[in-house]
Structures are given as C-alpha cells and as structure tokens.
C-alpha cells in the first residue's frame, strides 16, 4: 500500500473515532443536563408539608342535633346531621377550589357560579363533579373524626 493510501486510512479512522467521541460526549453532557434538571425539580418538591392534616376531630356527636348544617371553613367540610345520621361533605368547589357557601337550595360557589343541591350534586354552573363525602369515624375518646383522604359514597350516613 502506498504511503498516501495509509494516510487516508488513518484519517478515516481518526474521523470515525472523532465522530464517536463527539456523540459520546454530547450524550454524556445532555444526560448530565437532564439529571440536574430533574434534581432541581425534586428539590422543588417538599417532602413535608405544613398544611391542614387530612384527619381531624370535629367534636362530640351530641354537638350536632338533627337538622344541623355547619360549615367548617378552615377544614373545608360541612357537617350535616339528618335523621339517618351524620355526614361530612366537602365545601371545596370541585370546579376551581373556592369555598362554597351554604345557600337555600344547597351550596353555591361565589367564584364561578357553580351550584349544588343539599347532597352536593351539581345543579348548575361549571363544576364537573358532585361535592365528595368524607369518611366519618368515632375516635376512642368519643370525638367524631373526619378523614379527608377517604371519600365515601354519597348518602352514606354515619349512624350514631
């Protein structure tokens, strides 16, 4: 093989090696960029939150006589006492999270005009879903407890 041919060959080898190294280093750079972006997102995601606990006591069952509809605005729950028993209905609008007020026909949202009936069913406005009902339990000390992490079927009253 002539000298020129050898040079061409080695040049070809060099250029393919260079191309390989170029793609390898680019991939490594892009990968580390991606990892640091994801780490930043993870950093932005707190592991502990300081907001309301999802399970809380609301008082003795006797504090809620039949016919009661009390809105607990911090906990965003309306405690309802009917003949059938007690229920905890969410008063956080299923549309965009405003606090719904108790109205004559049920609940009404001041932000975008959603309306719900006594049981939380949508009867008007943009709300996509009925207001959820939360699970009620009786704690050993006799207090009623609402567990907002568990939604139950509408119309399931907690007998006392």
């Amino acid at each position, binding site marked *: 093989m002539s000298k020129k041919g050898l040079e061409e060959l080695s040049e070809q080898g060099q250029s393919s090696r260079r191309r390989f190294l170029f793609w390898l280093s680019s991939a490594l750079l892009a990968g580390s960029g991606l990892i640091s972006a994801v780490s930043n997102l993870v950093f932005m995601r707190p592991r502990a939150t300081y907001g*309301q606990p999802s399970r809380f006591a609301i008082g003795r069952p006797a504090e809620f006589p039949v016919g009661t509809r009390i809105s607990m605005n911090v906990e965003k729950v309306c405690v309802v006492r009917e003949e059938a028993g007690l229920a905890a209905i969410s008063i956080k609008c299923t549309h965009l999270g405003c*606090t719904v007020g108790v109205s004559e026909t049920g609940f009404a949202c001041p*932000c975008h005009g959603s309306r719900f009936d006594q049981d939380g069913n949508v009867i008007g406005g943009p709300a996509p879903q009925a207001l959820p009902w939360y699970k009620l339990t009786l704690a050993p000390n006799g207090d009623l407890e609402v567990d907002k992490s568990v939604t139950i079927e509408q119309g399931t009253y907690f007998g006392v």
Partner: protein
Amino acid sequence: MKEATQPKTIWGTIAELPNNVWKSIFRNPLPSSERGRSATMFTNFFLHLHPVRVHRHTLKATYTLGLGLISLFLFLLLALSGILLLFYYVPSTAQAYDRMLDLRGTVAFGTVLRNMHRWSAHGMVAVVFLHMCRVFFTGAYKKPREFNWVVGVILLLLTLFGSFTGYLLPWDQLAFWAITVGAEIAAYAPILGSEVQFLLLGDYSVGQEALLRFYVLHVVVLPLLITLFVAIHFWRIRKDGGLARPEQPDTVVETPMTLTGGEPRGAFGLMGFVRKPFTKVGNVPGNTVYSWPDLLTAEIFVLVLTIAAILVISISFDAPLEEPVNVMHPPNPAKAPWYFLGLQEMVSYSAFWGGVGIPTLEVLLLLMIPYLDRRPGGEGIWFSKQRLLANTLFMTFVVINIILIIIGTFFRGPNWALVSPF
C-alpha cells in the same frame, strides 16, 4: 496628535485629572459632525444597541405608536419601583398585609410607589398586548422576523405571569382566591396537572409556602427571564434589519468622503454593517437619518410621556387593596384583575377548556402565526389590503377576548350570575 503631550508637573496632572477621567468614560464629545454622531452611537454602551442610522419609516409615530418602547419603559419603571418596595416587604402570610398598610401609613411616598408599581403592571399588560396587535396588523412578523415574533409571545406570557405572581404578594382576598383558583386551573392540565399544582404551591393547600414561591418567582426568576428575552428581542431587531417597512428599493445616496480638510463626512463604514441598510464607506442609504439625535429624541419623548402618565395616574388613583385574607369567605363575586377576567369568564363554562385547553391552543396558534402565514406582502403597512384575511382573523381573536373581558368585568355579579351594569 496633540493629546499625547505629557504634563510636566504633578500639578499639571492634577489639573487635567477631571478632564482625563471624563474623557476616559465618554470617548466622544457631544457630536457636532456626522462622524461624531456615528461614533457616539457606536462606542457608548447604552447607545450601541441602536443602529447608527435609522430608516425614516421606523421613526413614524403613526407606524409603531411607540408601543414597544412604552413596554420597555414600563418594565424599567416596574423594576425600579419594585426594588424600592422590596425594602419594606416581607413574604410572610402573617406580615405581608400589614406591610401593605405600613406602606400607606408609615413610609414616605409608600402609597405612590405602590400605585406606580401596580398601575405600571396593568399598563404593561395592556401595552404589550397592543404591541402584539400592532406587529400583527402591520405584518411585521414576516420573514426574516418570524422568531422575534415568537420571542415577543414569550414576553407576553412572562408579563402575564409576572403580573399574576405580583398581585398575590399583598396577601389580601384577591391574592388568596386568585392563587387558589390559578393553582386549581393548573391542576386541570392533563397528566402532570396535580404535580404542577403541588410544585407551584409547595403544599396541598394555599399558604405560606405558596406565598414564598410566588415571591421568589416574582422578584427574581421572572424579571431575569424578561430581561434575557428583552435583550434577545432587541438584538434580533438589529440583526433582522430594523423594524419592518414597506418593500421599496433602497436608494443609495452618494456622499463622497471629503478628504480636503476636516473630518470625512458621512463615513461610518462598518458601524452600520447589519443586514440592512447596507452601507459602504462614503455611501448613505436613502430615507435614513442619523439615530443621534432623531431616534434618541423620539425615545426620550416616549420615556417622559410614559413616566408622566404613570405619575399622574398614581397620584390620582390608589392601587386596590382588598380585605385581609379570610380563608372562610371568598369575596362574592371573586374577580381577578381585568386582564384575567376573559379567562375567568371562559373558566366559568368549563375549567379544562376555559383554563387549559383554549388558552394552550391560543398560545400555540400565536407562536405558529409567522410559520403558517408565509405569504410575503403588506409588511410595514397598517391593515394592508393584501393581508385582509389574516387581519380579519386576528381582529376577531382580539375582539372576542375584549368582549369576554367586558362580560367578566361588567356583567357578572354575585355567584358569577349575569347582571346588568346599568
């Protein structure tokens, strides 16, 4: 050159010191010759983003209406007044509202400064939007300015987000319920929605973490991003050959260098070397004037007008401050500022379509406009007949948004029910 003479004594050095310092900062004296006008524009850091010469069409007040400049000046006013307000603000749910009251009661010029910040923000939203309309109706987004339109749309979004994060900071009723609703809208986004909401709020409900996050976004992240994109926006205006103008052959006026005595006239060579107007040494493109003083005086005029308008408004009208946050009771109706009432009106029909679907489509369409409308013609002319279809479509978009805002502002009462304002 005479300047090279060395002072003989220390006293001579001291006597020349002020002059030397001055000349080391300002390389050129106030320009008196054409070459001086070029050199001043070219060598001054703050002026060098201007071209040395500018097309007459660019200076027409009836063409640009100065809207881009007004946007910039409002942004600068916001930065200045914002930095001052930072000295008295505490991003804490317990203190933020009291600090607003302190601004009124115990801080000199506190009220007027907060008014300026708030009204400039409202003004910037309006003017940036109008600027976008101007650019559309004059077809100024066409090749080669497509990407600068995209940068402009990004700036519009940053402006809106900046104003959204801003009105949360007083932690009044408007703030609390706006952030509640805003974050819930984010949660309607597909797949990542609730994750985005959690990242924005830093918690599962609106509280201290959310206030801190929006504060950092408002005072650091968004101003930095806006500054970056404004720089790109301006840089590209230069690289794309100045503002769009009607296609016409660029006449070249021969101004031969006068070598006989004095400085060469009209010589600015490479100083004008951008896409257009092309310049050769000794030649000056027709229909252009020196930026010093024509462009500068126009800019200073707009600056003074902007500041004057904001001052008059800020002295006459107080920025709104609602009741302190009451988690129990949203105000009824709970209304966002006027520029979001169109959005709120749409959201009142469907949270997903009004809050996520349609706005996303609108933004995507806006971003793609220069890549969809590829037909040349009509650049630099208001409502050109060649662009009848495009202008009609965009006008429809503008009018629909304005109608939605008017409905949301005047025709919505308690429980977002339709009411008559009359």
